[in-house]
Structures are given as structure tokens and as C-alpha cells.
């Protein structure tokens, strides 16, 4: 039996009775535990409205919402318990941050949940570390930039150790590096057992990251399943107010120009390149070095290096070492390998299996990348 985290049955919701059509109209959605899930839709499609039903902020006009198989209980105590399990990070950090200093804001969640000061302190440190904001701990929140505020909002959500993290447009308004950092952090959370649900209209992000997507259009759920099947239906994509992810488009174009099969659909640039490489070309190796409490020396002078994971990032910073690839390092190392060059990837030890899985996917595109541990 499939382990559904959220299930809605004919979920209907209107903000007011005068609305010409409901904001959510008989939505039946099932979100599986531990699956990287993205909810896609144009502005006003009902993504945020749907999210707010997951943590009981909104109560359906009709229909039901189930969490872990049980219909939501809208009593005060039950909602409080529910919101300790499900953390929602809203799109605009200014709406979410309301304490005067960074540490006070991050402490808000744990302290509201009645967690003692010692544990709260540990969680503040841990959350700030994960989002790379340790040095801003005692800064007033009003003095932070937008990107920094977004990180603080993220840290505040992490501090309650949620079982489910719901992110509304997590990369909106962030610079490309910070976006990559957020995705890396999300990956870490997924690996540690947190179910992450992202709401976005960034099709590139959703396509590259999600195992499963749910697409909303004007309050109706029009698709649930693997991303490839949805994007293969151009009319559905267009009617949802979306566009094709660039990797998907390029793959189609290459297929049109060079012939061959569209499947398997590449989701990243390295997968596209892999597909396009001539038979017999030599691929480089990726040397993977796990990092736990110090940065080991690879001894590979002149080879490009990348870092992946917050512990590794921090230790590199402390050691004053500069990798070649700060962000999106797995992808860059794969690109190096496809170009026939070797590279070194330093990573947080718990992320090993996930990295191997990503590298292993290249086989489906005709290239086995050799990994040296």
C-alpha cells in the first residue's frame, strides 16, 4: 500500500462567496512520503491556497484533507501538533520573519513548541549553520538583504525539525548561487528523511529536481505524475500557463535536428551532453572524498574540485580553501567527466548515496562515469 502523506478528496475552497469560481475546485491530490514533489502552476493557479490546507490554515469549503491517512482535526491543539510536523516557508520572507534579531526569529518555533533553552540553542546553531548565516546570528532582521532574510526564514522553518517542509517559491528573488545553495540544502533535508514539497512556476527547477509533479490550473489539478509525461504534452503545458524546461526543449531540438529518440529525457545539461557525445569518446573520472570533520587533501593538483553539502562548505571556508565549483558541484564534475577530464568532489558523508545515484543516472544516457572513492 502506498504511503501517502497528504491526500485530498474533492477539496474545494473559495476566499469569498462572491468569487466567480473557487480558488480550488474539487482537487484530488496525493503526495507520497519521501518523494521529491513539486507543485507547478502559473500565478493564481492555487498553489499557495493548496499549501495552506496542508497545515490547516485554510479549512475546505467542501471535501477533506488527510495527513498521514487521517482527516485533519481543526481543533487548536491538533493544529498546533500538525504545525510542528509541517513547516511552511512562505514566498516573501518579510511576512514570515517577525522577530527583531535573527536568533530570536529562529528560536520562535522551538520556543513556541515548548522546547527547552538548551535544545533551542542547539537548533539555532544547527539551522544557522545549514543556511550559512552563523555570523548574522545577533543581527537585527531589518538590516538583512532579501536573500539573507530568505535564508533566515528557511532557518526558522528548519529549527522546528519538521517532518514535512513546504517551500513556496523557494528560489524566487534569489541570485543563481543562492538558488543552488537552497536546492543543495533541500537535497540534504530529503536525504535526512524530511519530505520536501516545493511550489513553483520555475519549470527548470521543478523538472531538474522533482520526482513527481502536480500541476494546477485555475484551481484545478490537471496533472499528477512524472515530469516527462507532462512536458511531452505541449498543449497541456501551454494551457497551464507554463513553458517547457530548457533541457527538455533542447533535447527535442537535438532530436529534431540529429534524429534519434527523445527518450530518455535528460533533466540536466550534463545528461544532454552525455546523449550527444559520439560513441567511444573517453569520459573522465570523479574522485569522491567524504568530509566529516576536516578537509582532507586529495593530492590531485591541477584537477578541478567541487564541494557539496553544508558541512563541507563550512569546513572549506574555515580552512580558507577555494574549490573550483562552489555550487551545483555534482553537475559541474559530471560536465568535466563528459569533457574527458577528471575532477574531485568533496561532499558531506551522508550524501554519498544520493550523489552516486545522480552520477549513476548518466548510464541511461549512454555514458558510465567512473567514480573513485
Amino acid at each position: 500500500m502506498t504511503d501517502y502523506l497528504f491526500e485530498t478528496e474533492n477539496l474545494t475552497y473559495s476566499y469569498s462567496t462572491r468569487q466567480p469560481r473557487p480558488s480550488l475546485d474539487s482537487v484530488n491530490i496525493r503526495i507520497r512520503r519521501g518523494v521529491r514533489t513539486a507543485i507547478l502552476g502559473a500565478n493564481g493557479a492555487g498553489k499557495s491556497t493548496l499549501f495552506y490546507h496542508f497545515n490547516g490554515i485554510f479549512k475546505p469549503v467542501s471535501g477533506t484533507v488527510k495527513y498521514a491517512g487521517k482527516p485533519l482535526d481543526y481543533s487548536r491543539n491538533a493544529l498546533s501538533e500538525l504545525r510542528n510536523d509541517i513547516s511552511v516557508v512562505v514566498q516573501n520572507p518579510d511576512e514570515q520573519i517577525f522577530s527583531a534579531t535573527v536568533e530570536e526569529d529562529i528560536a520562535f518555533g522551538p520556543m513556541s513548541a515548548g522546547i527547552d533553552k538548551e535544545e533551542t540553542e542547539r537548533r539555532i546553531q544547527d539551522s544557522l549553520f545549514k543556511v550559512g548565516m552563523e555570523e548574522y546570528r545577533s543581527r537585527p532582521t531589518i538590516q538583512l538583504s532579501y536573500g539573507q532574510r530568505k535564508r533566515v526564514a528557511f532557518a526558522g522553518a528548519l529549527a522546528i525539525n519538521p517532518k514535512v517542509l513546504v517551500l513556496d517559491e523557494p528560489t524566487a528573488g534569489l541570485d543563481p548561487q543562492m538558488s543552488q545553495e537552497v536546492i543543495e540544502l533541500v537535497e540534504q533535508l530529503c536525504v535526512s528523511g524530511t519530505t520536501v514539497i516545493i511550489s513553483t512556476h520555475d519549470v527548470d527547477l521543478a523538472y531538474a529536481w522533482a520526482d513527481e509533479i502536480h500541476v494546477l490550473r485555475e484551481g484545478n489539478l490537471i496533472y499528477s505524475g512524472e515530469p516527462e509525461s507532462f512536458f511531452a504534452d505541449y498543449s497541456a503545458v501551454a494551457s497551464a500557463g507554463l513553458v517547457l524546461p530548457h533541457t527538455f526543449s533542447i533535447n527535442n531540438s537535438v532530436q529534431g535536428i540529429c534524429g534519434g529518440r527523445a527518450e530518455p529525457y535528460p533533466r540536466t545539461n550534463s545528461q544532454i551532453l552525455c546523449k550527444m557525445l559520439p560513441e567511444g569518446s573517453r569520459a573522465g573520472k570523479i574522485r569522491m572524498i567524504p568530509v566529516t570533520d576536516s578537509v582532507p587533501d586529495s593530492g590531485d593538483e591541477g584537477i578541478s574540485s567541487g564541494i557539496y553539502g553544508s558541512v563541507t562548505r563550512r569546513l572549506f571556508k574555515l580552512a580558507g580553501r577555494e574549490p573550483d565549483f562552489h555550487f551545483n558541484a555534482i553537475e559541474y564534475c559530471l560536465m568535466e567527466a563528459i569533457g574527458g577530464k577528471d575532477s574531485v568532489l568533496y561532499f558531506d558523508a551522508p550524501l554519498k548515496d544520493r550523489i552516486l545515484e545522480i552520477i549513476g543516472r548518466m548510464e541511461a544516457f549512454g555514458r558510465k562515469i567512473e567514480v573513485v572513492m
Partner: protein
Amino acid sequence: MSEETQMDTLAYSSRMLSWAPLGKFLFVIAILIVNIVTSSMMVPFVTLAIGLSMMASSTNFKIPFFVGLALAEAILILAIGSGMISITGDKADPAIWDTHLLWFDIYMTHESFNKAWLVMFRGVAGMSVMISFATSTPIPHLSQALKQIHMPREVSELIVLIYRYGFLLLERMDAMWEAAHCRMGFNGFMNTMRTTASIAVGIFTSSSNLADKAQIALDCRNYQGYFPIYNTPPRLGIKWIAVTVIAFVLIYLFGMYTEDWIDMAELFFGGSL
């Protein structure tokens, strides 16, 4: 950074940040009271010295430009007020200057002249002490201090929320102001008036919109009806009470002793009195 946030920045970087907010508050109130209850011209100088030394120790006299401007304006108003006091003396007393200007009788007496200076000195000295408090105590600290004296929770929570969302609205207003500039919104008097009114309306609607969204965000973060405090500032201790009482008594006694030390009328008008 907007000018509005400079004050907050200053308070958070103050060397007096870790002092008990209630202690500072009590001390400042005591100094202000003793500044008023004594009639010695020397007491405002002592108050001013305390205020200036607190400002020096807190922020090295750094005050945001707009606060400096507001201070200058306050001093100007004080000067005008004091001038009015000095020329409206009791006609039962002998005048040191007596004239008629348009519809006004100008009648300056020895007492009114001295009183005017006393008001002026008290005002300036009081401002220095209040600014030293304001530039060393962020609003959330003040709110926590209010909690410590069992002020209703609703009041202190409201202070924090107003503080937080007030800044956001000010930021929004700044953005709207700049956008209006870009669109020639301040071109001419009438245009300026229209734009200012539109911005005011925009801010009003933004505030209700922000309130709605903030409520959702609060619920998302499992808001239980109060803001738990992680770092509570030091409480009001016996030391603060002792320092306050000692300062009050000493300044009061000093005021009694120095009551007739300075006679401004004598200084200005000398032999003509």
C-alpha cells in the same frame, strides 16, 4: 539603509545594549524628574553632563542625521518658547525691558528672564538623557522590560508587532516614493500633493494586505498568541535602584545647595538691574 532603520541599528550596536532596559528607563525618568523639581540652574547642567556622557559611552555621539535634525528643530521650538516666557513677565514685578510691538506688550522681568533660561536648559538637558536612552534600547528590549513589570501581554506584543511591521511599511513607502520620483510624481506643487496623497492611500491598503499575510505567516509558524523571548535582557536589579536613588538624592541636594549660583538676568543685564 533607510534613515528609519539607522536608529535601530544604532541601538543594537550600543555599548549600553546589555544594560537592563528597565534600569536605564528608571534612571532616565529619575534624572528627568529631578531636573524639573529643582529650581537650580546648575541641575540642568548636571543632567546635560549625564546625558552627554551616556551618549558618549553608548554610541560615541553618533546620531542619525534625521534625529539630529529633529533635535535642532526641538531646540528651536524650545528657544521660541523660552523667548515667549521671558517677555511675558508678571507686571507686578519691576521690568528689565518693557516695550510695545504691534499688538503685544513686551514685559521682561528678572524672574521671567531666569525662568526662560531654566526652561531652555532643562529642555536641552532632558533631551540629551532621553536620546541616550533611545539610542541604547531597541524597541523589543523595551517591550521585554514592560513584560517584566507585568504590563499586559497584549500591549508588549503589540509594541513588537508595530515595530516590526512599521519598518516594513516604511520600506514600502520608501519604494513607492522612489517609484513616484521616477515617474515625475513630484513635478510641481499640485503634482506633489497628489502623489503624496496617493502614497498615503497606497500605504494604508498595503498595511491591511500585510496584516492578512502576516496572520497567515504567524499561523504557519505555530503562533500561540505570544512571542517567546530567547534572550531576555537583564532584569532590573538592586544596583540599578540604588544608583537611581543615589543619583536622584545627590542631584536634588546639589540643586538645593546651588539654587542661587547662576542668575542669568544678572549675567546679561548686570548693572542695569
